[in-house]
Structure formats: C-alpha cells, structure tokens
C-alpha cells in the first residue's frame, strides 16, 4: 500500500484524483483519503502537523509493507521552478538528529539534503532545499516502515529569483505535483519493495487455526506452533501440507508439536540444496 503525506490540499489534489481516492476521515486539521492501492493524509503546514497526521495514518491502518512518501513543494536557491528531488539527508533547524533515507532501486530524481524549517524563510542555499514538513514526517513514518520505504520528494516552487513567502498560487502548485506523478508511479513500481513480502498459504493458516482449537497451548507453545507451521509452509507444497492435517489426531499437544518438528527436520535437509 502506498501512503502519501502532503501538507496542502492543493498539493494532494492531483494524487487524490490519480489514485481515485475518497475521503475516509479526519483528525484535527488533518484529512485522510483512501483508494484501492493508496492512502493519503493532508496534514496542514508544519513539521508537527505532518508528524501527527503520519502517526494517525499509520496507527489507523497498520501495515507491514507500506511505502511512505512525503511529497510537497520546497524552496531551493539556484534550482529552477519545477525541478524535483528525492531527500538523501533529512535535517531540521530545531534538532541535531538527522536521517539518511536508503534507496533500494534507482531514483528518477537527483538526491539532495532537505532541511525542514519551523517558519517560512526566503533564505536559500545552493546545496540543500528547504521545506516545512519532511523532518516531522520522517521521524513519525519510521515507526511504521524501514528507512528504504520512507522517502521525501520535493519540487521547487520558489527560489532566490522568485521568492514567494507564504502565498502560493494553488493551481500552479497542483500542476507542479501532477507533473511528477508518472515518475512517482514508476519509482514505486520499480523500487523492489515487493520482494520482501511474505504471506502464509491457506492450508497452513487452516492447520494453525485447527491446532489452536484442538489443543490448549501455553503462550510458549503457541509461539512454537506458529513458528513450526510457518516453516512447514515454506518447505511443503499443497499436497504435502494438506497431509499434515492427519497429525491433528495426536491425543497430546506435545506429541503434535514434536511431529511437526520431525517433519521440519526431515524435509529441511532435503530442501537446503
């Protein structure tokens, strides 16, 4: 699942439309949207607002394999309006902590340091861009995903030649974000994130449920049970897996667990190579 976090509705609008998302709730000033493959938070301006809304989004929709993207406009000294970057270093003007987002695949955008400021500024530098959310977003999103799955993409909306302060043309901003959607889509598709996902097959889930209903396990035994069935799930094909249902005829839970382990010992040495 893609989790987008943006500060302003005008930034979010093209993404909401592209992924056909619908409103799915509010929290304070934050608004949430949901589609089939993506969710989005419009957080309001500022690092704290971004952190709060990111946390709410993560807690409301727990998921182990989400990719988190903070997308938004930023200021950059010599860069042209519309230039886009991916954060390779996230810093702020209020914390000594810093983050280095890790990349799995290739990025369609050049990397740059994103420095998050507490207040808007027309002070620009050449080797970094300035925003008001990335640091808060990153701090919060890392609670729900590893560094490879948390990225910040920033698009230049103002620079030393065209400083804009706090007043923006909403249509222009929507258009800046919309122009990056094809790259965002391709980045998410080619980032290699899906390779680490793991789901248990239905025969294994079925065996787990039946075993839990049949025997009264202690907490430690439950852990052993899950672990052994997960291993067998990886080792056995459907036919072999279905045969394990026969083990449920064991009168004692200890015997059942031992039989699962024997099967693992037997099959694992055949499947190592």
């Amino acid at each position: 699942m893609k989790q987008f976090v943006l500060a302003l509705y005008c930034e979010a609008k093209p993404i909401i439309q592209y992924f056909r998302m619908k409103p799915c709730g509010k929290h304070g000033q934050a608004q949430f949207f949901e589609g089939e493959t993506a969710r989005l938070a419009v957080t309001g301006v500022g690092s704290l607002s971004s952190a709060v809304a990111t946390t709410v989004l993560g807690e409301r929709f727990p998921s182990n394999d989400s990719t988190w993207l903070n997308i938004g406009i930023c200021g950059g000294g010599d860069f042209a309006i519309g230039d886009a970057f991916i954060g390779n270093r996230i810093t702020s003007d209020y914390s000594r902590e810093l983050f280095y987002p890790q990349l799995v695949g290739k990025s369609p955008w050049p990397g740059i340091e994103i420095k998050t400021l507490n207040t808007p500024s027309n002070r620009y530098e050449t080797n970094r861009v300035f925003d008001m959310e990335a640091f808060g977003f990153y701090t919060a999103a890392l609670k729900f995903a590893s560094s490879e799955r948390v990225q910040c993409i920033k698009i230049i909306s103002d620079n030393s030649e065209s400083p804009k302060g706090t007043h923006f043309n909403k249509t222009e901003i929507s258009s800046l974000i919309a122009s990056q959607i094809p790259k965002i889509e391709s980045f998410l598709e080619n980032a290699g994130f899906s390779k680490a996902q793991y789901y248990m097959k239905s025969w294994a889930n079925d065996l787990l449920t039946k075993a839990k209903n049949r025997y009264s396990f202690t907490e430690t035994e439950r852990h052993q049970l899950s672990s052994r069935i997960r291993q067998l799930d990886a080792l056995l094909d459907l036919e072999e897996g279905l045969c394990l249902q026969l083990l449920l005829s064991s009168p004692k839970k200890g015997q059942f667990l031992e039989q699962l382990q024997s099967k693992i010992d037997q099959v694992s040495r055949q499947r190592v190579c």
Partner: protein
Amino acid sequence: MFGRIYIEEAVQNHPRTLEILNRYDRAERIDCGRYGEVFNPKRQSFRLQKQNPALILATKHGNRVLPTPTGYGLGADQHYYFSHMLNCLYDCRYCFLQGMYQSANYVLFVNYEDFVNDIKATLDEDPSKQCFFFSGYDCDSLAMDKVTGFTKVFLPFFAQHKNAWLELRTKSVNISSLLEREPIPNVVVAYSLNPKPVADSLEHRAPPIKNRLTALRKLAEAGWEIGLRFDPLIHFENGIEKYSQFIDQVFDSVPPGYIHSVTLGTFRSPKNVLKKMESLYPKEPLFMGNLQLKDGAIGYEEAIEQSLFSSVEEKILQYIPPSKYFPCQ
C-alpha cells in the same frame, strides 16, 4: 556499480577517497559526519538494502587489529584479525554478516596506513613470535580489490615482515592483482569451498565452484600458498557422500603438495545473529531443522555435527598430513 557513495567528513580529502570518487564519478555523493549515522540506525532493512548497497567511505578509529576467538588458529604463536571493510559483495545465506549489522551498505575504511601501523606495532611487541593476521572476517578479502586497492597496500607490507602471516579469505576469482606479482611465502590465499549443490543454493552471487577451483589452481601453480576452508559444512540429504566426492574433486584440481592448510567447521552461529538471519529469510530451510542451542550458539544437533565433521575430517586426512589440518569446533 554504486548509486550512492557516503563520505565521512574526516576522509573527504583522503587520496583513497578521491581515487574511488574519481572511479565512480556518476555516483551520488552524500556527506556524513561519522559513518555510524548512516550504517547504524535501527530502522533499516538489510534484505532490501542488499539488492543495491551503497558505499560508505570512512575512517576506522581504534580496535583495528583484534585477537581471534579461541579455537580459530593456524598453528602460529598468535592470531589476529582485521577488517578494512564491513559487509560483503556476496550474499551467502549461512554467513553471520547476514545478521550482524543493521545495514547492508559497504563500509570501506580508507585509512589503510593506520591498519598497517597497528599490525606493525603488534609484531613489534614480540618480534620472536610468529603472528597470523586474518583479513576477510567482515568482508571478502579480494572480491572488491579492484575498488579498494587492498592488496596493493597490504601485500608489500607482509612481503617485508617475515614473522607475520596474512590470510586472504575469499570466494573471489578476482586474482589478477596476485598473479601479476611474485608470490609472497607468508601470504595464504584461502578459499571458502562447499560442494556445488550447497554453493548453488546458499552462496548467492559468489563465483561458481568450478571457477573458484580454476582460480585456486592458477594461484597454486604461480607459487602462492593455498588454504582450503571447508567452513561451514552444511547438513543436507546425502551430504556426507557429496562432501566426500567434492573433496576428491578439490584435491584433483589442487594437488596436496600446494596446500598450506585446511580448516574445517560446521554451520554454527550466535543465537541472536541466527534469529536475525531467520527473520530476514523466513523461507530458508537452512535455518529450520536439526539445530540446537549449545553454549549460546546454535549449531547442528550433536549426532549430525559429529557424523558430518568426522567423515569429512577423515576424508581430508587421506590427502594431507595432520600438521596442515586445523579443525574449528
């Protein structure tokens, strides 16, 4: 090869840094204060990063040369190891590096001269003693030699210090830097070897066994001291028979007369490291059956370990004298 190179502040102008940056001039460069800022944070996925690791150029402060754990030696008076690099180009499922660090990025410590000075200081403590120095503990010694220039610096040092032995532990067939120079009698090129089915299934991205044996033969014929490292032995169906055939194959490729030493050890790992490896690869059969916890480490069940170990040991001793054999148990 590298999409991103992180550069620690202290080594930004180091000649080795500049050489590497010059070689990878298209890589994105990112400054960092200390390498740990990038390498150590907890919320990183080793498995995802292993798909496309970045390079971190850093300096190693202290603890550069360390004594080996008890039981790991090759008959010298003292044994040490040092790591000019953290993490490996290869992706061997049984390797402790899979569960050792938060990050799969490569850290290269460019201050080789400090390592050399520390090795020299260790030797100077008692010049009458023979000392063995193992490289390739936290990385493969040769796999990235073209990038790191490791042998260019360390081999000349060992060539001049006869009471110091160096082991280059590797699976790499990147041996041109060795073949281009005269062999050094106190440098051992030690190859990690396993039968083809194990290598194919578990030693991802490493050169095929056939190519490793060819490299070994070339090095032996050129006069280099050769080490054979059957470590870790892996338990698998008909494994004892396969290991027996494999050892015949190895000594057929590299006649026993060329061998400096052979070591042997079965698969084992500290419990916490194995747990992490298991969580990285939950479908890997290697971590599933026939294992037991013993003295804080996880290894094969006693009977399996003994049977595998003793049968391979017996086979090896058909080819080499006991003086060249060093079990790690």
